[in-house]
C-alpha cells in the first residue's frame, strides 16, 4: 500500500502541494470568482423580480384603464339612449301636432265637400223636378190632349217625388 509505504518520504510534499493548490482554488476561484458568479445570479434574480413587479403594475394599470373606459362607455351609452329617447318623444309630439293639424284641415275640406255635394244634390233635384214637370206636361198633352198649366204640373210632380 503505497499510501503507507511511501508515507515517510512523501507526506511533506503531499501536504505542501495540497495546501498550495487548494489555497489557489480557494483564494483565486472561491474568493475571487465565485462571488462574481453569485452576484450575477443575484442580479438576474433581482432583475426578474423587478420585471415581474413592473409587469404586475402594468397589468393593474391596464385593468384600471379598462375599468375607467368601461365606465365611460356605459355613461356615454346612457347619454346616447337618453338623447334617442328625447328625440323620439319630440318626433312623436311633432308628428302628433302635424297629424292633428292635417286632421282639422281634412275635416274642414270634408265639410266643405259635403256642403257642395248637398248643394249639388238639391240643385239636381230641382232640375229633375223641372224636367219631370215638363215631361209630365208633355205626356199629359200627348195622352189626354190636355194642356196642363206648368204650375199645376210642377206641383203635382213635387207631390209625387216627395211623397
Amino acid at each position, binding site marked *: 500500500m503505497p*499510501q503507507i509505504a511511501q508515507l515517510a518520504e512523501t507526506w511533506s*510534499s*503531499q501536504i505542501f*502541494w495540497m495546501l498550495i493548490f487548494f489555497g489557489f482554488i480557494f483564494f483565486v476561484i*472561491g474568493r475571487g*470568482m465565485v462571488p462574481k458568479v453569485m452576484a450575477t445570479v443575484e442580479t438576474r434574480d433581482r432583475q426578474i423580480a423587478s420585471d415581474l413587479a413592473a409587469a404586475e403594475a402594468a397589468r393593474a394599470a391596464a385593468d384600471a384603464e379598462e375599468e375607467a373606459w368601461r365606465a365611460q362607455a356605459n355613461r356615454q351609452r346612457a347619454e346616447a339612449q337618453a338623447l334617442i329617447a328625447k328625440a323620439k318623444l319630440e318626433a312623436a309630439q311633432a308628428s302628433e301636432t302635424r297629424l292633428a293639424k292635417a286632421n282639422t284641415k281634412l275635416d274642414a275640406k270634408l265639410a266643405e265637400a259635403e256642403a257642395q255635394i248637398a248643394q249639388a244634390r238639391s240643385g239636381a233635384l230641382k232640375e229633375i223636378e223641372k224636367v219631370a214637370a215638363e215631361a209630365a206636361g208633355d205626356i199629359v198633352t200627348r195622352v189626354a190632349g190636355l194642356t196642363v198649366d206648368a204650375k199645376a204640373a210642377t206641383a203635382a210632380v213635387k207631390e209625387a217625388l216627395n211623397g
Partner: protein
Amino acid sequence: MAETAKVDPMHQFTIEPMFGTDHWQIAGYNIAFTNSSLWMALAAVAVLIFVAGGMKRELVPGRWQMAVEGFTGFIDNLLAANIGPAGKKYVPYIFSLFMFILFANVLGLMPLGLVGVHPFTFTSHFTATGVLAVMSFAIVLIVGFWKHKLHFFSLFIPHGTPLVMIPLIFAIELVSFLVRPFSLGLRLFVAMMAGHVLLEVLSGFVINGFNAGLGIGPVVSVLSFALMIAICALEILVAGIQAYVFALLTSLYLNDAENLH
C-alpha cells in the same frame, strides 16, 4: 511477457517524484513535485477553466455559465439548508472543497491510460484528504470557539441530558467530535482507493483470464469486463457522491460551530 502478466492493483497509488526530489525543501522537509502534485495542479486548472468559462456574467446565461451557476447555486442551497443565512460566508470554502474533490475524483477516473497518460487520484491518499479534513475541522474549531467561546463545549451535552449522565455523554460526544476529521478524511480516501483497487483487480482478471487459454478463463474475463463497465459507472457516481458527502459533512459540522444545536 504474456505468461507473466501480473497486475499489481496497488501500483497505481505509487507516488513518483517528477522533479525537485533532492533539493526542494522547506525547513528540511522534502517538497518534491510528484505525479500527485501534478494531478492536484491539473484539477486546480480544470476547476479554474470551468469556473472561468462561467464568468461571462450575462443576464441570459449560456450553457457553460448555466453549469457554473448551477454548481454555485447548489453549494449556496446546501449551506442555506444546513446552516441558514449565516452559511453564506462559507460558500467560497465549500465550493472550493467540493469542486477540487469532484474534479480530482473524476480526473482520476478518466480513461487517459489509452493515450499513455496515467491518471493519479490524489484523493486516494490520506495525506491529501487529511489536509482537507484537518482544514475543515480547524475551521469548525476556530469558528466555534470564536463565536461561542467556552460555551462551545455545550455542543457535547445534548438538550435534556439527565444530570448524572452528563459526564458520560460529554465524553462520548467529545470522542465522536474528535473523530470527525479522521472519518472525514478517511471516508474519501477509502472510497476512492477501494473503487480503483476493484477496477484494477478486475482488469487483472480480464488479462489473466485470456492468458489462461481456452477453458473457463475467457468466460471469467468476459464476465469481469462486464462487471468493470458497471463498476466504472458506479465509480463515477461515487466520485460525485464522495465530493458531495465531504462538502455536506463539512457544512453540517460548520452548522454545529455556528448554531451549536
